[in-house]
């Protein structure tokens, strides 16, 4: 750990699917903030700073952080936003605690479904110079990525189906009231993504409270998920500049996080993982880049079920994005789920005896942004 102060997660509120109750966005943010304060057992007076993340085009607000200043307690407080990704708000919040100038940070991300078309909102992210005229939304980019991978890995379809089956089984256990049975249209919307494999976009909010080692010690807390390592990276902008069947940015993000956490062999080190599975192909690619299973082993996964709920390393016990898809905050939810597993507060899908957990979050076209966080149950040594 290179940090001046060791940061950890002391509170989590995950609202992965909110439907039809008519609350305004600001009311949802207020409720999520109150919930995370309650989970951590602290008051807003204990919060030194805030980092939020949202997407102007999903929100229909030209500077969507503005709606947050009042609702998440930002009035007369220090609040920043990282609209690049929900997981980036976590990284910046953690850095602010880690530099010793803040005792706590509140991190909030949200994803509404008030836009007439989320794919259309995503298409605006294509540059007007070369790509805007193409039908390039995020699903389309994920399909192009899957197709590139398919050309490199034989038998990929069966491995992808196994990932879907695993995540659906997990989601049904973790959030039985929220997860819908997949549609049965049988029609693929974007080849080669399997028909009915994408969960529909839903409204969601996630909030996390971070605190430094001094704050945790003073409060005598024992339910902190300590940040043992963080890595965050990006792929280049243009898909044509990438080998879409490889995830070099994720390999680098994992290298950064593992180096900080002192991990040589992740399979021997972590007991639980959450992976951004916007498509099952992305989960497979993440297995490889995170050092959990190279592509040569993917065909065996449906047999040995090593990443299943009872496997040697359960991945996406929450059911992942396969089951609940609040689009913009799915990455931060992966981090929140692992923090809760390490804190022993994951609810129905808690795995017993988690000492160390791994979260991977990706955002953007064909996983442009990659973030890897390692959490520890024990505070292993103070910061540098």
């Amino acid at each position: 750990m290179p940090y001046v102060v060791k940061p950890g997660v002391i509170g989590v509120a995950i609202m992965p699917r909110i439907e039809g109750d008519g609350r305004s966005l600001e009311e949802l943010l207020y409720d999520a903030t109150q919930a995370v304060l309650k989970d951590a057992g602290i008051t807003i007076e204990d919060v030194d700073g805030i980092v939020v993340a949202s997407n102007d085009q999903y929100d229909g607000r030209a500077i969507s952080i503005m709606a947050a200043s009042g609702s998440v307690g930002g009035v007369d407080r220090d609040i920043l936003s990282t609209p690049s990704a929900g997981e980036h708000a976590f990284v910046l919040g953690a850095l602010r605690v880690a530099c010793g100038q803040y005792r706590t940070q509140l991190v909030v991300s949200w994803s509404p479904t008030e836009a007439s078309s989320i794919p259309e909102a995503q298409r605006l992210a294509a540059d007007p110079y070369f790509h805007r005229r193409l039908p390039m939304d995020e699903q389309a980019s994920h399909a192009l990525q899957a197709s590139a991978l398919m050309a490199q890995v034989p038998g990929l379809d069966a491995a992808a189906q196994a990932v879907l089956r695993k995540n659906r089984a997990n989601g049904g256990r973790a959030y039985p009231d929220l997860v819908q049975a997949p549609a049965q249209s049988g029609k693929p919307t974007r080849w080669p993504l399997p028909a009915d494999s994408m969960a529909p976009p839903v409204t969601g909010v996630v909030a996390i409270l971070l605190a430094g080692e001094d704050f945790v010690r003073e409060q005598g807390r024992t339910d902190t998920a300590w940040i043992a390592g963080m890595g965050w990276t990006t792929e280049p902008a243009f898909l044509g500049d990438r080998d879409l069947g490889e995830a070099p940015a994720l390999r680098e993000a994992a290298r950064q996080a593992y180096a900080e956490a002192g991990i040589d062999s992740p399979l021997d080190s972590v007991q639980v993982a959450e992976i951004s599975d916007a498509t099952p192909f992305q989960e497979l690619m993440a297995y490889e880049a995170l050092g959990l299973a190279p592509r040569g082993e993917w065909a065996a996964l449906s047999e040995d079920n090593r990443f299943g709920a009872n496997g040697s390393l359960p991945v996406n016990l929450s059911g992942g994005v396969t089951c609940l898809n609040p689009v913009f905050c799915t990455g931060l939810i992966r981090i929140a789920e692992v923090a809760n597993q390490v804190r022993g507060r994951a609810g129905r899908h808690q795995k017993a005896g988690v000492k160390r957990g791994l979260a991977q979050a990706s955002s953007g076209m064909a996983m442009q942004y990659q973030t890897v966080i390692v959490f520890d149950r024990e505070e292993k040594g103070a910061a540098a």
Partner: protein
Amino acid sequence: MSARVGIIGIGQSAFKARRDDASYPDLVREAVVTALNDANMELDDIEAVVYSLSPDAMVGIGNAERVGVDAVGARNKRFLRVNTGGATGISSVAAAYYHVAAGACDVVLTAGADKVGECGDSQTVLNKIWDPTYERQLPLGTINMLAMSAVRYMHKYGMTEEDMARVVVKNRWQASKNPNAHLRKETTIEEVFASRYISWPVKLFDCCPQSSGGCAMVLASEKYIKDRGLDAVWITGVGHCSESYYLGDRMGNGQTADHADAFALRASFARAFKMAGITDPRKQVQVAELYAPFSNTEFHSIEAAGLADLGQAPAMMREGRFQIGGDIPVNPSGGTLCTNAIAVTAMVRVAEVAQQVRGRAGGHQVEGARVGIASGNGGDHQFFGTMVIEA
């Protein structure tokens, strides 16, 4: 406690109304190359990038930071974007600062650009910053939003339109000395008065232009700087603070902040000053670059920075205390009033102060500047970032 963080490279465009010769990422790259040359570094030396970009709608590209990844050379590196509206630029420098202060990185680049001239009508875009429930149905824009601040400031402290014009004359005169400024033509009080009303009491000359251009800065740890014997100036104070989203909550009875003043800017400066050990800014600060896109807002910014008592800034301006050669020159670069490429405007404030305390501000150098302050305002006069920079 964390070690000090230094600024070792600065690059900014010569800002203009249009840059049809350069795409949006081209403009970012131009600033990055200038900053790296200034620092005598290569892109490979950079460990992380903080991307400075305010509303996507201004450049007309959703998550436009993604298109900028290559311009800042961030492939397979740490990368994130910050947005606090008009304060984005200073918030991005702060975010880069936290990367280094936390111990996560030794060398961090922050960069961005804007092409406000391409968005059609920035006030149309900016109307969409207000909440759709209550305030967006009104014809709000940033101009009339701050015109309403002027009306309250006039009412509370007796500011006149002539006082406002005096700010324009000072800043245009200072901008004429700065080759990077967008509006560099000197003007007179009579000319300001002859310009048409946009939103009473704000006239055309009281308004900032819509500028295109970029800015970039390289920050490094004290150890990195000392090990290599590099020249640096130091970020010794950093602060942020916010106000309510609702303009109508900044008036009436019992409000925390008054829309006449800049309550959260004052609180933000208090945080930065405490960190830097500044107890009497009028004695300890020699130069200030304060984000003021309209002439009237320079007054409450000066007061929030502690350089004048509440309501006293117009009188002190009349005495020439805030111009180059005065007690504490404010916006010697010409400020936001003469150049506003929104995504980087507040970064330019920090960059200009850093150049001043480096003694490299050229024609608009403030003699003997050792300690300077910078600020940025964003949202609907809602988010405020501040910094203290020392030689």
